[in-house]
């Protein structure tokens, strides 16, 4: 597939936003469960706001993908069948709940609403819980947009969902680590440890999907495409010599070298370097963490670019040659 840059930004930005929120929200629970030391000042408003802004930025990026953004509201209509439609619902839902969470925190409207066993649960925790659900749903919806296309075999796998989730989480925790360092608030240790763990997990899972994709062969061949069963078939003409939507939208034009470079880059920049930086820089140096974040984000952009490059659309067998 040809990389769709608006979609690359959409998925990476919201992924980080989603991960960030879950990082802080999970910390909140751990504190509540006494598994983590409460941190000093209240950082969650800031974190939720950044998470919210990332979701907004992603949404904005997605508009560039639409031919008719003014009609975007229509896109919620088909939630019964369309993962895209579901994403279009999940994203605002996530935004709304994250926003509400931030507002509650900011204005201190945080009354206790119920107790779970012996643990008191505040309004923000409840709203946060809803946000968490929305965010998880959003992860699933976003990933399923790709994973549900069954003839894009490289995408059509639970690994796509896992990857989207793990990468979003990893970048979110890395971002949380940076925030913790920057604001000197929040459980730095937890965040960085999780960031390392998630980055590692994401790397494993991505490597797994890379190796899976390496051996994937589309069942669609020229033979099945035109229904002629002969071992040698060559296309001579595709009916349009100056190109068509089909040659522009489904095929990338990068050379093999660029593609190889892209793959190495995203593996190193998105995973290996952040891992090393986060792991070995025990010191909570802002510079080191910020560098890890930047590298990881660039890497994940490249990963998403590669995600498109990797996917071989069966329609391409119809568009091989002109004459």
């Amino acid at each position: 597939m040809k990389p769709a840059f608006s979609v690359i930004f959409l998925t990476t930005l919201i992924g980080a936003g989603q991960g960030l929120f879950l990082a802080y929200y999970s910390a909140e629970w751990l504190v509540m469960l006494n598994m983590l030391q409460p941190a000093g000042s209240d950082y969650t408003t800031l974190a939720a706001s950044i998470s919210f802004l990332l979701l907004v930025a992603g949404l904005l990026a997605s508009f560039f993908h639409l031919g008719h953004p003014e009609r975007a509201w229509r896109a919620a209509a088909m939630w019964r069948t369309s993962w895209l439609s579901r994403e279009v619902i999940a994203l605002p839902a996530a935004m709304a709940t994250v926003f509400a969470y931030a507002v509650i925190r900011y204005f201190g409207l945080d009354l206790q609403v119920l107790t779970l066993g012996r643990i008191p649960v505040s309004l923000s925790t409840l709203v946060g819980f809803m946000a968490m659900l929305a965010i998880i749903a959003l992860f699933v919806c976003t990933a399923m947009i790709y994973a549900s296309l069954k003839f894009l075999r490289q995408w059509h796998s639970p690994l796509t969902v896992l990857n989207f989730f793990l990468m979003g989480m990893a970048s979110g925790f890395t971002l949380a680590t940076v925030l913790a360092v920057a604001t000197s608030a929040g459980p730095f240790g937890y965040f960085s440890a999780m960031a390392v763990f998630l980055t590692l997990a994401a790397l494993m899972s991505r490597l797994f999907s890379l190796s899976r994709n390496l051996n994937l062969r589309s069942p669609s061949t020229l033979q099945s495409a035109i229904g002629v069963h002969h071992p040698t078939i060559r296309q001579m003409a595709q009916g349009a010599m100056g190109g068509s939507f089909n040659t522009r939208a489904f095929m990338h034009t990068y050379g093999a070298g660029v593609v190889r470079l892209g793959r190495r880059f995203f593996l190193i920049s998105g995973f290996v370097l952040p891992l090393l930086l986060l792991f070995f820089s025990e010191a909570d140096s802002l510079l080191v963490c910020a560098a890890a974040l930047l590298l990881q984000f660039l890497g994940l952009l490249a990963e998403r670019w590669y995600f498109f490059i990797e996917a071989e659309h069966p329609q391409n067998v119809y568009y091989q040659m002109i004459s």
Partner: protein
Amino acid sequence: MAAKPALKREVKSTTCYMCACRCGINVTVEDGEVRFIQGNPEHPINKGVLCAKGASGIMKQYSPARLSKPLRRKAGAERGTSEFEEISWEEAFTTISERLQQIRDTDPRKFAFYTGRDQMQALTGLFAKQFGTPNYAAHGGFCSVNMAAGMIYTIGGSFWEFGGPDLERSRLFIMFGTAEDHHSNPMKIELAKFKRNGGKFIAVNPVRSGYAAIADEWVPIKPGTDGALLLAIIHEMIALGLYDRDFLLHYTNSPDLVNADADSDDFGLFLRSDKEIKESCIDPDNKMWWDRHRDTAVQAHAEGADARLMGEFETEQGCKVKPAFQLLKERVEQYTPEWAEGITGISAQTIRRLAHEMGITARDETIELPIPWTDAWGREHESITGNPVSFHAMRGLAAHSNGFQTVRALGILMTILGTIDRPGGFRHKAPFPRPIPPCAKPPRSPDAVQPGAPLEGMPLGFPASPEDLFVDDEGGPVRLDKGFSWEYPLSVHGLMHNAITNAWRGDPYPIDTLLLFMSNMAWNSSMNTSGVRDMLVDKNDDGEYKIPFLVVCDAFHSETIAFADIVLPDTSYLERHDAMSMLDRPISDFEGPIDSVRVPVVPPLGDCRPFQDVLVELATRLKLPRFLNPDGTRKFKDYKDLVINYETEPGSGIGFLAGWRGKGGEKFMRGEPNPNQWEMYAKNNCVYEHKLPRSYQYMRNWNRGYLHWAQDHGLIRYTDPVNLHLYSEVLQRFRLAAEGKSAGRQPPDYLRERVRTHFDPLPFYSEPLETQAIDKDMYPLNAITQRPMAMYHSWDSQNAWLRQIHAHNYLFVSPLVGAQQGFGDGDWIWVESAHGRVRCMCRFSEAVEPGTVWTWNAIGKASGAWGLEAGANESKKGFLLNHLISEEIPAAAGEHRYSNSDPITGQAAWYDLRVRVYKADAHEPQETSPQFATQARVPGMEPARGKWQAFVRGLSK
């Protein structure tokens, strides 16, 4: 989908002219703008279907490459630089008619008038004849004259407009060298039906594309060798007795006795009886047969006679004679399938099998229609029989210098199979069959050209003997293109492809004014295109152009208009009246004569004027007799008026259109002019169709009823049967002259051998002339072109839809060639002939005979032409093969230059081209070569359109 405002919507019938097939179309016009063009289901040619071009007519009509103003080359501007100024029609008329008047009054030969892919030779020919110039021809000479002449001189008709395969009833159909052809849609309709009915379709073609794609069998022949294949098939059929003896006996000259006495002055001529013959045009029935039972020579077609087809006999007078068929048998003895295998690249086994399939299908699947008829000798027949093997062929046979004899061989194969004008075989279309050869003759001497007077005789015709040549006392040509001279005696369509070279060289003489109509001679219809472009701008020492005045009538911004001194903007086909006339090439089908018209469906663009009106106006100003009343006043207001009122001779009742003649439209074929004729055509799908009675629809060469009907209706002059010329006495007459055996005209000495060799009364195989003249090892590959179905010559690159299908072209080569030369699929390569070289991209193909390379014809364009941007694919990646094809056979300096043409008919030998190919250097520019300076847009053209275009009726403006 919002409701649209109600529009004024009309559907108007007219005739398509995106190509020469002439399908009926219904044009939906909304508020004066074309919305949709659809095939007319009521039309006999296309029965409602269309082709890619026809359906893109809108984009032609609204093309930004349309010309809209008469133009004059700016004073002082160099020719070829496209510097024009707008002038009025009055200025254009005055300029041209003053010049032409001067020429006509002094030396009418100095005006040459050549027309390209038009369909109005009835009018253009009339104009030329009335003007008095011998220098007139249409595109036929560079197109397919071999096909026309080879067949007409053999069976009295030919393919395409003249006749075709009866696929409705055929069981086996063999197509030679056809990519698309003129009968585009009808062929496709019939071919599909034929295949659905289970017939077998064989394509003989070096390339498998187009029609050949759906053939059941592909016979990949080497170009230029079909003659060998056909002769070997004939060999096998005669050897096995797979010919239709009955048919040969009664309807061909096979049994006619030929003088076989090599010492006799009549050697090779038919033995003639003293039977009294009527005044008859060419082929009187006074030949002799050898009767099987009485073992003696008898009058041909004598009651009860049963002739021998084979053997050698001696007449009572002691003359050695042989039946013509015996001569054919002897001729083909050498042409064994094994011999042909080495030439054609087709295995002897395949050749035998093809012969067997044809012979057995023809013999065993005979059709018998319960239609009684009477033959020309008065014999009654209970039924019409037919042998269901049919053929079609076009330029793959025609466009070679050995094409005439190849086509003769095909005509003979069709004849011995007994398939002429019979069900399931070949069938004629009115006005064919015509006598062999037809009656029209070119003038016989330079005296036919006189200042201030019409040409005596027709500018084009069908010579039957050396006496019919248009030569001077020394045997030199009278025509600029040397047509009907000893160099190309049967050039029945002229040699347009040599007109510019000859005029430039002043051989046989220089001219003053050249008028080109609908012909892109500075590009795709010239051989040696780069050279021709130079000739058009070449000057004498005195600074005058070698071709002093060039008038071009075109509808589009073609390459040629850049070289014009005056440009006349023509209307589009949707803006004018046209007649597909009985006087030219009507659209008749097997069942009877049909003609048709075009009527305007939208008003002309800008100042465009129909060229027909322009010609009528010029003719009137020049006071050409047939355009004036006896009192010298103007006779025809315009073309529309001329079509109604013109008669071939005053009172003949024969005019341009056959339908609705007579005062009230009650007559057909013959009748007084009808003032409402156009309206009646317009009301009837623009078609007049006459269905002959069933008993006149077959065996027309010998069908008494039909022949009388045809005579009564002015199609033919005589009712003599048209026996098929298996053996051509016409050719033998030229040979005898060349051998110095006959009294009368003889060729100049330097041409004797050429005429003697090629005017063989029986077909023979010889290598194409170019191949004989060059080093074959140096140029090992044959290079040919073919028509893409979605593009018409050079016309359609201005069409926004069609050019997306063919934006540029590749040279298709076998991967074997690439491997040998070390280049890969898609690489830039050079293609080089003895004449020049072009750079292009290659594309590997498994559907081409490995010794052949080919490309789509005329996709490549000159930069800037056709209203295209300078960087358009057509000029940067597209290329024209014509740069490699010489218009003359390679010759040493000082040697006589012959046209690169068939020595019999002057047919341009486009497909004799031999080339070599090699990889282009990596650092060479990635664009085709040669490139030409970008041609400028001209006044009257729309400004260049932008990046986007969306045609929607009513919204596009």
